[in-house]
């Protein structure tokens, strides 16, 4: 197995005056499952096309295995791209699709067929080689696209939101499958998605992007538990964002003055704040607990707006002094259902709340 690192060396991509990618600087390690996560239009697909060779960076360099890819066409790079809509050839058989990259390289028909059958075995679809693409289900097509990309043994597989066309259940199944294929073949996967669930479950590391800028790079746990910017905190997973001003910092614990009283949280990355700095306090819905009495500090008085029942969990929508909040509670039976309009108090552990400087929120 080859392990070629991909280095994006201060890469910027501009279209006229519009900056699609702004100074992306990172190293993707060989054999890693690396995801770019961000809302549509954040520049992640542009960056991927730059790695695949369909476009060149305006500034900076792309290095694969130490060599500069400038002027190297998509077909000359050790990468294979899987398109969002898969781009399988509808008029070719499944085997011809998979063997197309081999056909291009002038490999004999017999060997092509043999390799196609091997790959079909690998993706657990033996015997479908003679079928037409439209005879396969969405998930099967997905796997055929992967097999086609793997046919010429690339070092790096680039995947551009390949699961977005599938239905929910299949999408969840394919996450496991993609991860398993990646571990089996040991290749570097670079995965583009706007679905944080996909990014978190499959990846070794995730880069969260917003308007062309990489906001944070890290493993899924640190992205979720220790976001470094307000965008990351609000984009990855559900969260409650409460605006406030710093009134006190004692070590890592910062106290904010907010519309719902004084609240404490941890300063992300050991950051120091001055009194009066505008900040956000982020608390995950699963970190909030419903309490019976007012236990200062770090309690919020609120009233129930509605409750959604999701089976394994109940999501409680609250209003606290005009701020919308939500709490996720594990379902332990019907007895803990709450009536609309009921007043309650919710509490949290300051260690599980994150204080971040004021900045843009996702979807805002």
């Amino acid at each position: 197995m080859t392990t070629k690192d991909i280095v994006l060396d201060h890469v910027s991509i501009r279209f006229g005056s519009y900056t699609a990618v702004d100074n992306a600087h990172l190293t993707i390690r060989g054999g890693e499952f690396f995801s770019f996560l961000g809302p549509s239009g954040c520049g992640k697909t542009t960056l991927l096309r730059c790695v695949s060779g369909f476009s060149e960076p305006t500034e900076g360099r792309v290095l694969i295995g130490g060599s500069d890819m400038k002027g190297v066409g998509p077909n000359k790079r050790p990468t294979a791209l899987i398109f969002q809509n898969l781009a399988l050839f509808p008029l070719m058989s499944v085997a011809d699709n998979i063997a197309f990259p081999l056909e291009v390289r002038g490999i004999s028909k017999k060997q092509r067929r043999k390799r196609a059958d091997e790959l079909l075995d690998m993706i657990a679809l033996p015997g479908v080689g003679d079928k037409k693409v439209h005879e396969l289900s969405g998930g099967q097509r997905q796997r055929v696209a992967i097999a086609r990309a793997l046919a010429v043994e690339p070092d790096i597989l680039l995947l551009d939101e390949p699961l977005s066309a599938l239905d929910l259940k299949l999408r969840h199944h394919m996450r496991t499958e993609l991860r398993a294929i990646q571990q089996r073949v040991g290749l570097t996967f670079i995965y583009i998605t706007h679905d944080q669930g996909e990014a978190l479950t499959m990846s070794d590391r995730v880069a969260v992007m917003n308007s062309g800028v990489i906001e944070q790079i890290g493993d899924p746990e640190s992205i979720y538990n220790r976001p470094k910017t307000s965008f990351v905190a609000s984009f990855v997973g559900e969260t409650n964002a409460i605006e406030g001003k710093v009134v006190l910092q004692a070590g890592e614990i910062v106290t904010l003055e907010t519309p719902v009283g004084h609240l404490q949280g941890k300063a992300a990355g050991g950051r120091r704040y001055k009194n009066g700095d505008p900040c956000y306090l982020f608390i995950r819905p699963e970190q909030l607990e419903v309490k019976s009495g007012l236990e200062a500090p770090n309690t919020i008085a609120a009233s129930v707006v509605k409750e959604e029942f999701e089976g394994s969990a109940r999501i409680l929508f609250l209003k606290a002094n005009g701020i919308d909040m939500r709490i996720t509670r594990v379902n332990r039976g019907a007895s803990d259902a709450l009536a609309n309009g009921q007043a309650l108090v919710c509490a949290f552990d300051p260690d599980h709340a994150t204080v971040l400087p004021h900045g843009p929120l996702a979807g805002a």
Partner: protein
Amino acid sequence: MTALRSLFQPMAAKHGLGAACFIGVAVFIWVVFLIVLPQISMLDYSFRLNLPKPDIGGPLDVYTLDNYAYFFSGNDGQLNTLDIGILVKTLVAAVFVTLIDILICYPIAYILAHSATGVAARLMVIGLIVPFWVNEILRAFAFRVLFGATGLINSIGMGAGFWDQPIDFIRADVALYSGLTYAYILLMVFPIFNAVEALDRNQIEAARDMGASWWRVHWRVVLPIAKPGIASGATMVFMLTAGALAAPQILGGPSNLWFTQLIYQWFNESANWQRGSAYAVILLLVCIGFVMMLMRVFKVSIGEIGR
């Protein structure tokens, strides 16, 4: 009848009885009066003798294969090489014109569908369509002016010193081929455009990513998608070229007859409508047979052409 009813009833339910009746009547008139009856009467004519008026309907007016026999063996029983030769030459020429049209129109249609955008695409379409406002005869004469002994091309060629004597483009059939090729270019561009437009650009990029050269991208990815469009364009261009009359009349060389001109001569100059009809039927059947054969060879079904 039940098939007709199953077409009529949903239409009446969807668009109202009046509209359904109008469409029914219009289609009936179109099919019966404009297609079936003229063809039947021509077929009927082709099996009759060219008799003087008093004998029509008399004992001499019987069905005969004479007119068809004449095409194959003339009056003397020898093989009618002249007429058969003209038919073969017409078909070969029509095939050439069709091939040239495919070669010209495939790139145009591809560029129109996948490269040209906005103003450029609109200009291209206008550039293709507007010249066809000029009527067919005038266009044919324009080609004559272009290719004549003292025409534009000869003046430029000789003026620039490429050749000394005027080249006889008319006798060499260059003018005829150009005229016919241009006459039906739209009938080739738009079906191919229709077919190629459905192609997903990602497929081209995917093929490029896998290292396919541009010709392989076209051969394996674009061309299979374009095939039904090419087939429907080719059938139209072939049929119309083989049946063209004005362009061969105006642009054809002096010693060079098109089969339609032969039919025309039987009808008008020899006043032998019966034999003319037989020749027209022969042309129609040969063309249909030829097209069907090619569709078989290229594995195109009639349904794909209708798309």
